[in-house]
């Protein structure tokens, strides 16, 4: 629905594809998968099964198998929860915020980002349940009174989190589905066999009539307007899970903006990780160009700089506050037991993105792909450092401890990646990963007469 047109064709900007070519090229990405797809899917399902078995083992023997050691009772699971919620953020940034800013380039990448958002929230949502141990009591988080008539505590950030994450999941799913409907209709009109029946149902009777577009364009605009503040709120609320407590290293006002920037940073990195192979396999070079990667890498640079600044500020305030506990906590981060995790995070998130100041790096797809993997790694370690390292080194020296994740933790973490990629692989072969309608929208409709519309 972006109205900004692309520049006139030049050597740098080849002529626009026609509407028909857009439908044809993107519809060609769907259809019966080849052997490679099944091999990849088989691998993903194997890892998922391993994760599920590890989880069942934990359900049988209790949370003790997960490596929790007092005082560190939040470990890999909460780290991974925050990691996946963070990944989810760039999808709505690209689809809603850049939509409101009328950035035409978003049309080629937003569908992948939005699908990634939904699947990342679906992954994140599992972790609070895994972390509480007795999965079957997860419904206690929902506001209903217990047997004595006591309600949930609305002053608790954990309850805010339930509201924020479930709202985010609902709204980002609706946003993805609303965006998909006209595209599915385009594919329905091309498909054959059982797929035609499938798309006939999922297109919900869409035909692109004037009445449908009239309501659709407005609904999309209001959805974007609602999703924009939501993106910023969700990770702020997640950050308050930490910042509202008095653990040294957590109790900081910078947490909300710091987490939001970090979330978008990791999310953009994951978008790059996903679209580099996607573009190659689906031969979408004509639609996802170096320009798109350069714009994504500028977002990466911006948010990476904010994250780097936040790292610096955390250390500065720890020193400047004069609070001995804060100072000790941050000294421990850099030079204590977990120094390796802290330096991984600083190198991957604070130093590596500085390479993006060079246009050559921003325009090199292999370089960006490698960098995106390091950013993902660094962002996981950022959450590990904030959560585990801060908890292991609180006020009283006799209460300090050391946490080492167990094989159950690592297997469930690997299983979460498999769960995410399973959904993404299923999506990529059945629904368009590049929006047909929105890519057409930035191509001017053919006109017989030259004059501009009145």
């Amino acid at each position, binding site marked *: 629905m972006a109205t900004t047109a692309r520049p006139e064709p030049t050597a740098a900007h080849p002529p626009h594809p026609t*509407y028909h070519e857009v439908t044809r090229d993107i519809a060609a990405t769907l259809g019966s998968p080849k052997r490679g797809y099944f091999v990849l899917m088989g691998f993903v399902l194997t890892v998922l099964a391993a994760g599920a078995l590890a989880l069942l083992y934990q359900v049988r023997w209790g949370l003790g198998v997960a490596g929790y050691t007092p005082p560190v009772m939040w470990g890999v699971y909460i780290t991974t929860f925050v990691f996946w919620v963070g990944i989810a953020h760039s999808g709505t940034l690209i689809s809603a915020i850049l939509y409101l800013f009328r950035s035409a380039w978003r049309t080629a990448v937003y569908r992948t980002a939005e699908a990634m958002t939904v699947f990342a929230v679906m992954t994140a949502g599992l972790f609070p349940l895994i972390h509480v141990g007795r999965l079957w009591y997860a419904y206690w988080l929902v506001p209903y009174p217990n047997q004595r008539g*006591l309600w949930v505590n609305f*002053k608790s950030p954990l309850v805010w989190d339930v509201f924020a994450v479930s709202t985010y999941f*609902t709204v980002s799913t609706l946003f993805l589905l609303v965006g998909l409907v006209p595209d599915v209709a385009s594919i329905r009109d091309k498909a054959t066999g059982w797929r035609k029946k499938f798309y006939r149902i999922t297109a919900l009777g869409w035909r692109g*009539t004037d009445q449908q577009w009239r309501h659709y364009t407005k609904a999309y605009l209001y959805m974007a307007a*609602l999703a924009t503040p939501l993106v910023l709120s969700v990770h702020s609320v997640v950050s308050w899970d930490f910042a509202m407590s008095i653990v040294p290293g957590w109790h900081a006002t910078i947490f909300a903006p710091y987490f939001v920037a970090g979330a978008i940073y990791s999310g953009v990195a994951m978008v790059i990780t996903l679209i580099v192979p996607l573009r190659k396999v689906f031969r979408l070079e004509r639609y996802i160009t170096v320009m798109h990667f350069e714009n994504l890498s500028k977002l990466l640079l911006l948010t990476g700089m904010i994250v780097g600044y936040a790292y610096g500020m955390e250390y500065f305030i720890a020193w400047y506050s004069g609070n001995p506990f804060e100072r000790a906590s941050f000294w421990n981060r850099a030079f204590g037991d977990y120094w390796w995790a802290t330096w991984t995070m600083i190198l991957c998130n604070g130093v590596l993105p500085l390479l993006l100041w060079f246009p050559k790096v921003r325009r090199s797809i292999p370089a960006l792909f490698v960098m995106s993997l390091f950013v993902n790694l660094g962002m996981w370690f950022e959450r590990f450092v904030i959560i585990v390292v801060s908890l292991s080194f609180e006020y009283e020296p006799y209460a300090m401890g050391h946490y080492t994740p167990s094989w159950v933790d690592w297997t469930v973490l690997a299983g979460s990646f498999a769960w995410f990629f399973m959904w993404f692989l299923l999506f990529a072969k059945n629904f368009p990963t590049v929006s047909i309608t929105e890519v057409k929208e930035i191509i001017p409709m053919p006109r017989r007469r030259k004059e501009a519309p009145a």
Partner: protein
Amino acid sequence: MSAAIPSGVLAGFRHVDDAAHAIRELKALGYDDFTVYSPVPNHEIADAVGHRISPVRTWTLVGGLTGFGSGLLMTMWMSLDYPVVVGGKPIPSVIPYIVIMFELTILLGALATVTGLVVHAVKNRRAAAYDPHFTDDQIGVFVPCGAERRTAVQQLFQKSGAEEVRLEA
């Protein structure tokens, strides 16, 4: 589509200005029950058809306000229903509850927007002939009309530059 397709004339246009011209001509002749199809939303066509602004925005507003109100009432009532008294402080603590009110504003606002979209799209649905090209690269216009007016409509479309004009029995 369960309703039977009425008889009429269906035209496919490749050029947006031609289609807009044909729509304006049709309106000048007094037709207002035609259906226009386009692969993407387009301002020129929307202007030519001349709809009023979509009522979906009212749904968004009402949904958002309902969400805010229910967040406010729910948090207040639930704290008052089982008071947890802490050092004589007021029982409902509004500032932290704003998070809940905000999230419910967004949640119900979005749900109401999508409901509004579905309701209005279904309500304004008309049985009309269709062609698969209309989600690909053509703009379609369908005019339901009896046999006596067919030739006039057909000529109008052809003069406006339609790619294809088809009679629907």
